[in-house]
C-alpha cells in the first residue's frame, strides 16, 4: 500500500527512448514487425518500472510506452474509429485526431495485458490509466452519431467493461483522464459527470479523475460531485494561482496535486516544489494531498522527466520531514 501522507505518483505517460521512437516510425511505414515493436515496448516499460522504483515513487504507472497519445491508442483499439491525421494541441504538440465513423465498441480488453505485465515487474502498486468517455468524444471528429450524448454513453459503456476487466486483473487504483471535461461545462458537465459515474460505479477500487489546464474555476465546486476518490489537477503550470479557486469551497475529495510543469523544459528546483506543496497544504486538508506532475511527461526528454521527478520526490521527502 502507499504511504498515507503525501504519497507520490505520476499522471501516466513517460517519454519513449529514442530506439522505441524510431521503431514506431518504422512500424507505421510497414517496415517493422508488430512483435518486434511489442518487445521494445515491453523493454521500455520494464525500464520505466525500474526507474520509478529507483526514484522512490509510491504509486507506479506502466508509462504508456505503447500509446502515441491520450486518444490514438483507444481509437485504434476500439471499433468505430478511423484516424484522420495530426492536429495541433498547443505549441508544437500534435496528436492524431480520430474520426468516429461507426458505433463504438470493444473487441477485446485494451489494457489488461499491459497492466498485468507492469504489475508483475514490481511489488509496488501500479495504477491503471484510461482516457475518459467525454474526452475521447471531444477529441475526436464525430461523423457518425447524430447526438454526441449517444457517442459519450456508448464510450462510457465500453470503458466500464474495460475498467471491470482491469479490476478483475488486480488493479487497485484506476485513473480516468478527462482533460476535456470543462470544454463547455454549461451544456455538458452533467453529461460528462454521468458518463464518469457509470464507469466508476461499485468498482470497489480507488478511483481518480485527472483534469488539466482549461478553466477549472468554471466547474468548481461542481467538480466535487464527480464519482471518484481523487481529483488530480495541474497547479504548477499556472504557478499555483489555481489554489485561490479552491479557497471558495472546502475540497471534499482527495487531490492529486500537480507540482511539476510538464509544458516547460526547465527543471524545477526542489525549493520551488517545496514552496508549492506548502502553499497547497494551506488550502487542502493535508491528509487528502497526493503529489504528481501536472500531466503526463511524454513530451519531456528522458533526462528532463527523470530530473523533474527527482525534484518532486525530494520535495515530498522534505515536506514530510517537516511535520512535527
Amino acid at each position, binding site marked *: 500500500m502507499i504511504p498515507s501522507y503525501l504519497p507520490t505518483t505520476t499522471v501516466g505517460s513517460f517519454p519513449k527512448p529514442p530506439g522505441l521512437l524510431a521503431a514506431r516510425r518504422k512500424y*507505421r511505414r510497414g517496415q517493422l514487425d508488430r512483435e518486434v515493436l511489442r518487445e521494445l515496448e515491453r523493454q521500455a516499460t520494464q525500464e520505466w518500472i525500474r526507474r520509478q522504483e529507483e526514484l522512490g515513487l509510491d504509486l507506479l504507472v506502466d508509462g504508456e510506452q505503447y500509446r502515441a497519445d491520450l486518444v490514438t491508442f483507444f481509437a485504434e483499439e476500439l471499433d468505430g474509429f478511423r484516424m*484522420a491525421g495530426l492536429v495541433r494541441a498547443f505549441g508544437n504538440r500534435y496528436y492524431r485526431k480520430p474520426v468516429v465513423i461507426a458505433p463504438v465498441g470493444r473487441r477485446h480488453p485494451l489494457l489488461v495485458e499491459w497492466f498485468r505485465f507492469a504489475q508483475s515487474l514490481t511489488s509496488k502498486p501500479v495504477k491503471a490509466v484510461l482516457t475518459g468517455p467525454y474526452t475521447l468524444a471531444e477529441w475526436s471528429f464525430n461523423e457518425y452519431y447524430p447526438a454526441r450524448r449517444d457517442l459519450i454513453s456508448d464510450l462510457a459503456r465500453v470503458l466500464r467493461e474495460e475498467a471491470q476487466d482491469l479490476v478483475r486483473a488486480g488493479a487497485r487504483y484506476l485513473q480516468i483522464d478527462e482533460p476535456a471535461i470543462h470544454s463547455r461545462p454549461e451544456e455538458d458537465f452533467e453529461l460528462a459527470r454521468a458518463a464518469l459515474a457509470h464507469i466508476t460505479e461499485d468498482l470497489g477500487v480507488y478511483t481518480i479523475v485527472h483534469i488539466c489546464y482549461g478553466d477549472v474555476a468554471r466547474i468548481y465546486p461542481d467538480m466535487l460531485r464527480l464519482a471518484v476518490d481523487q481529483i488530480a489537477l495541474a497547479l504548477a503550470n499556472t504557478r499555483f494561482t489555481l489554489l485561490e479557486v479552491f479557497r471558495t469551497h472546502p475540497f471534499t475529495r482527495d487531490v492529486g496535486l500537480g507540482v511539476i510543469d510538464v509544458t516547460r523544459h526547465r527543471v524545477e528546483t526542489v525549493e520551488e516544489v517545496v514552496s508549492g506543496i506548502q502553499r497547497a497544504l494551506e488550502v487542502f486538508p493535508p491528509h487528502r494531498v497526493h503529489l504528481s506532475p501536472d500531466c503526463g511527461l511524454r513530451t519531456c526528454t528522458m533526462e528532463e522527466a527523470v530530473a523533474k521527478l527527482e525534484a518532486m520526490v525530494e520535495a515530498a521527502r522534505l515536506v514530510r520531514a517537516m511535520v512535527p
Partner: protein
Amino acid sequence: MITTVVGSYPKIPDLPAPGRWRSAKEKRERGEISPEEFLQVEREVTLEVIQEQVEAGIELITDGQIRWEDPQTYFAQGLTGFTLDGLQRWFDTNMYYRIPVAEGEVLWTDPITVEDYRFAKAHSPRPVKPVITGPYTLARLSQNQYYATFEDFVLSLALALNQELRALDAENPLLIQVDEPGILRHKADFPLFREAMITLTEGVRAPLALYTYFGDVVDIYPEILDLPFDVIGLDFVAGPRNWEALEKAPFEKWLGFGILDARNTRLESLEELVRALDRVSRYVPLDRIYLNPSAGLEFLPRNVVRAKLHRLVEAKRTVLGVGV
C-alpha cells in the same frame, strides 16, 4: 461572390511527410536554432500554404497565420505590458494557448503583422487579407492585473490595435479582417464592444471585415450591422441561429458566409452547399457574399482542408454557372 478563408491553415503536411515547422519549433524552444533560422522555416511553410489555397481556387487568401502560435499570444507578445502564463483552452476547441497576463500598460510600439502581410503579398498571385485578433477577444482571453476595470483594458487594447490597423492600412490591402469570436459569449458587453470597435477602426481607410465564429449574433442583431465594418462574418455551422438573425432585419453589408464546417472532417456535399447559398441569397444578394469556412482551418488535417476548400470553390462555380 468571393471565396476566402477565415485565417489559419494547418502548419504541417499530412503524414508521413515530415512536419518541418514542428521540428523547427522544437529546436527553437531548445535554443538549437536562431530566431532567423526559425523565421526562414516559417516563411517556407507560408509559401506552401499560400500555394495550397491558390491551387484550391480560393480568391482572397491569408498567410495561413503560420507565425501565430495561436490568435492570442501572437498579439500579446507584439505589444508591451503582457507576460505569458499557463495553458488555457481556446474557446471549446482542442487547442490550448498560454494565457497572456497584462502586468503593465499595453502599448503598441512596432507593427506586429505588417512584415507577414508584405511577405505573403509579395509571394502570392492572389490578393492577401491581413487578419488581426480584435481587442475585445484579446482582453477576454487574457488576465488583467494592471487596469482598474475590464472596460479600461479593452479600450486600451483597442487604442493599441488601432495603431496596428493603421500600419496595415498603409500597405493598401483590399480588405483587413478583425476577429472577434469573444463577443458571442458575452453579448451583454455589446455597448463596450461598440465603443472598442469605433476606437479600433478610427482613421482606417481600407475596407474592414468583422468576423465572429463559434456561435450566433441573434441577441446583438441588427445592432452589429451599425459597427464601422463593411463585411460581417457569421458562422452558420456552430451558430445555426444566425439564420434567425437574418430574419430579424435586412442585412445591408457584405456577409462573410461561414458555411463549411472548419471543425469536422465530414466533407459537405456540393448539394448542401448549393442549397445553403440559395437560402442565404434570399437575405443577401450573392454579389455581396464572401464564401468561407466557419472558422480558421487549423483544427483539421491538411488533406481534409484541401478537399473542403475545393468543394467550397466548386459550390461557388456551380451556383454562378461558371465552368469548373
